[in-house]
Structure formats: C-alpha cells, structure tokens
C-alpha cells in the first residue's frame, strides 16, 4: 500500500529538499537558514566564492556532515531523523568528489562493482556486466582493468562517476569535480555530466565552471557567507542579477 503512495508522491515531491537548515563548525555558522528544493530530473548548479558553504551544503545531503537544525528530505523522507538508516539512504544518493577518491588498490571495474556486490548483494557477473556498460558510457570501455594510478585525472573522475551510477542513485551530487583537473581534461568530465543531465538525472552540482552552469543548469543558486543570496534560471541570474552580491560575484568571475 505504502509503496504505491511513495510512487505517487514521488513525481511532485522534490527529490532533495532543504528546510531551514543550519550548520555550524564549532562557532562558525556555515549554513544559514537554507531553503532549497531540487525537483525530479532537475539540474541545480550551486556557485559562489570559496568558503561560502557550497560544498558543505552538498555534503549534508548524504550526511557526510551533520546539520544542527532544520530538516533535509530525499524524496519526501527525512534524512536528518536520528532513526534513519544512513547506509540505506546513501545508496540513493550518488556522490562525486573533487579529488576522485577512487580506491587505488582496485581496478576501474572493481571500483564500480564493489558497492553493488557488497552492499546490494548483486551477483558478481551481473555487476561486472553493468559496470562494463557504465564504463563504456563514460568512454572508458577499454580501461576496465586499469588501476587508478594508470589513468589520467579526467579518466579517474569518469570512473568515479560510473562508480556512483552503479548504485542506481535517484540523485547525483557533484562536488567541484573538475577543480583538480588539468584544464585540457575538464571538457571530457563535463561532457559526461551533460549526457547524464540530458538523460534526466536529478543533479546537484557545485562548480566554478560558469559555462557549464549556464548551459546545463536548469537553475542556478548563488551562495555567499552561508546563505543563498539569489536563485533563478541561468539566463536570468547571469545576465540580469537582482542582488548586489550576485552582481559583484559575477563581475569577478567573468
């Protein structure tokens, strides 16, 4: 009975929802009264200066950081409830990191199959078949047996994306995933993300790539000093920002 209900509500319940979220690191107030909803199939891009709380915001979604007040919901289900099974919750949220964080002692294929086999109990050959498909999708079909140390930064990051996708997440978090890459390798990673967005993946993306934000984002969120200062479609926010803070930031990054 409840299964049907969940399916029903899913389409109009936001995939990720922040409500009055506050987060402190000791004395420092890093997230201030954050309200934000990411709808199903929506790509929300978070921009803002360093230290504005963008990454922290993202990391709260799969509880790599705990919040002090407010609530975060995934598909309507509170994740900040102390009773919630955090391992189950994290399976629905894929995360890609700035420094890739691939497992260096495992091949590309093993990086991708590990969680489905260990966490979901997917049979090994089934997981490998799927992993090969995912690696092919990110353009690394021929690198399945390579170790991370044998891959370029861009290739490693694409494996990391495949690894996150292997758990069939309903939302993907991208935390400055091109910031550690050589400039000529940024494009291949953004390309994979663009394809994902086109396939209808719900995405919350923290980035400094303004071109990507404008082109792929359905909505852009500008953060400053722990607050969301402006949010809107990329064309509006980039071309006619309403707040002074947004104007100031945008002139600096242009």
């Amino acid at each position, binding site marked *: 009975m409840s299964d049907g209900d969940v399916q029903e509500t899913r389409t109009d319940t936001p995939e990720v929802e922040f409500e009055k979220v506050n987060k402190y690191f000791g004395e420092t107030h890093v997230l201030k009264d954050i309200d934000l909803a990411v709808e199903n199939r929506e790509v929300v891009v978070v921009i803002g200066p360093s230290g504005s709380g963008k990454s922290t915001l993202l990391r709260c979604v*799969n509880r*790599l950081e705990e919040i002090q007040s407010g609530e975060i919901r995934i598909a309507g289900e509170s994740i900040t409830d102390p009773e919630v099974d955090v*391992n*189950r919750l*994290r*399976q629905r*949220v894929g*995360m890609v*990191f700035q*420094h890739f*964080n*691939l*497992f*260096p*002692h*495992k*091949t590309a294929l093993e990086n991708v199959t*590990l*969680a489905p086999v*260990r*966490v979901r109990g997917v049979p090994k050959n089934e997981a490998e078949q799927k992993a090969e498909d995912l690696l092919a999708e990110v353009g690394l079909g021929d690198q399945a047996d*390579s*170790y*991370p*140390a*044998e891959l370029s930064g861009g290739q490693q990051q694409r494996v*990391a994306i495949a*690894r*996150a996708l292997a*758990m069939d997440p309903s939302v993907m978090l991208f935390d400055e995933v091109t910031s550690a890459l050589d400039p000529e390798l940024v494009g291949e990673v953004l390309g994979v993300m663009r394809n994902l967005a086109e396939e209808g993946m719900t995405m919350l993306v923290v980035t400094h790539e303004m071109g990507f934000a404008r082109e792929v984002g359905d909505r852009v969120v500008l953060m400053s000093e722990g607050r969301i200062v402006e949010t809107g479609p990329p064309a509006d926010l980039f071309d006619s920002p309403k707040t002074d803070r947004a104007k100031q930031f945008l002139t600096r990054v242009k």
Partner: protein
Amino acid sequence: MGETDTRKRGGEAAARDGLVTDERVKWAGVAVSVAFTLAIVGFIALVLLEYVDYGLLFAVVPRFVEAFVRVLRVVVISSVLAVTAGVFVGLGRVSRTSVTHAIATAYVQFFRGTPLLFQLFIIYLGIPSLWPPGEFPVGNWSFATAVIALTLNHAAYVGEAVKGGINAVPAGQMEAARSLGMSYVDSMREIILPQAWRNALAAIGNDQVILVKDTSLLTVIAFPEILTVFREINSNQFDPWTPIVLVAITYLAITLPLMRLVQYLEDRAEWGTQG
C-alpha cells in the same frame, strides 16, 4: 669551467669546508666505504683462517640446526599471532569509541613501556605461581611463555604501525566508501585496511626482524635458543670464535629470508604504478 664557477658561487660555505664539488664528496664516500669493507673483510678472513676450529665447527652444527628449528617455530607462530592481533590493536587505537580506544592505548603503553624481559618473567614465573605448587597443568611452559610474551609484546608495536598506516589513508577514501552505502566495517575491511597494510608493511616487517632477535632473551626462561647454544659451547671449549660464526649464520638464515618476504609483499602492494 663555467659550470664549476656557478657551483662555486652556489656553495660558498661548502667551498670553505673543502667540499666543493659532488665529485669530491663522491670519492670521499667511496674511499671511506672501501676502507671500511677492507677492514671488515680482512678481520673476518683473519678469524676464519686463524681462530675458527673447523673440527669443532662441524661437530656443533647439529646443535645450531636444532636451535634454529626451535627458534623458527616460536618466531613463525608468534609473528603470525602478533601481526593478526596487531591489526586489532591498531583498529582499537583509531577507534572513536572511548572504551575501545582507552583499552587499546593502555595495552600499547604497558607492553611498549616495560621490558620484554620483565614480561617474560611475569608469564614464566608469575602465572604458574597462581596454582598450588606442582599442580600447574602446562608441560612445556617455557615454549608457551615464549609465544605468549613475544605475541603480546609485538602486537603492541604492530598495532602502532597499523594505526599509523590507517591514519595515512586519505579521509576521502572513507568518505567515498561510506557515500556508496557501505558500512563502517565493510569500508574498513575493503578500503582502508588494504591501504593501511601497504603503508604499514615496512614498519611491521622491521618489527618482525626485531622479534627474531628478541628470541635471544628466551635463554632466561630456559628456552634453548641460539645464544644458549653459543654459551654452552664457549664455556666448555673456551673458544668464542667458532660458535660466533655459527650464531651469525643461524640468525641471518632467519632474518634475511624474512626481509626478502617483506620486500616481496611491499612490491606486490604497488597497485598499478607503471613498472
């Protein structure tokens, strides 16, 4: 010429000390090491030609072989147990559960903070005295003591090496594992420990070599180890050099293969670096 000039300007202080160029340092190094080697080789040759009684040497070889086998048994058993237990000690040392952390820390402090010799006495003399005289049930208590003391002592050192190895794994590895929905235990076993093991291998290997040499203390609990045989022969024959040669060979017969094994394990844990 021009090159020498730049070097000189770069190292005014070194020039005043007379160590102007890398060449001179290099030759100084060669001279010292060759002189040292010649002195050692000459001394060894002198000993082997003049002071070793080969009749005696071949006569006592079987006694060293026996000691070798006995010590090797203790070493293999204690080392395997110490490394296994040490992994858990290391996990306890990085635990954020305060009880676990406190117990692991106290364990390490005691076993690293008191001499192994003392620990041998506690077990060899202390434990049997808890029974009424003559009723202690274990037959070969010196062998058991050897294994227990070496295991407990070296598990503390291995634990510290494992702790260091775990702390050297970047925090992002645990974050990546957990964000895939893996439990803490799975993440530790699959992701953190294999990398920590690689980081700690050199230190663990070093400790196992020390464990081999620590067996020399077992003579005080009446365990006939390698130096016990040496002392018996020396005091009966008044000939130190003949058994000294055999002692060296016997220890190296254990430690050299052990160092090889550690090197092999280290090489095997180089994942995908271009070879």
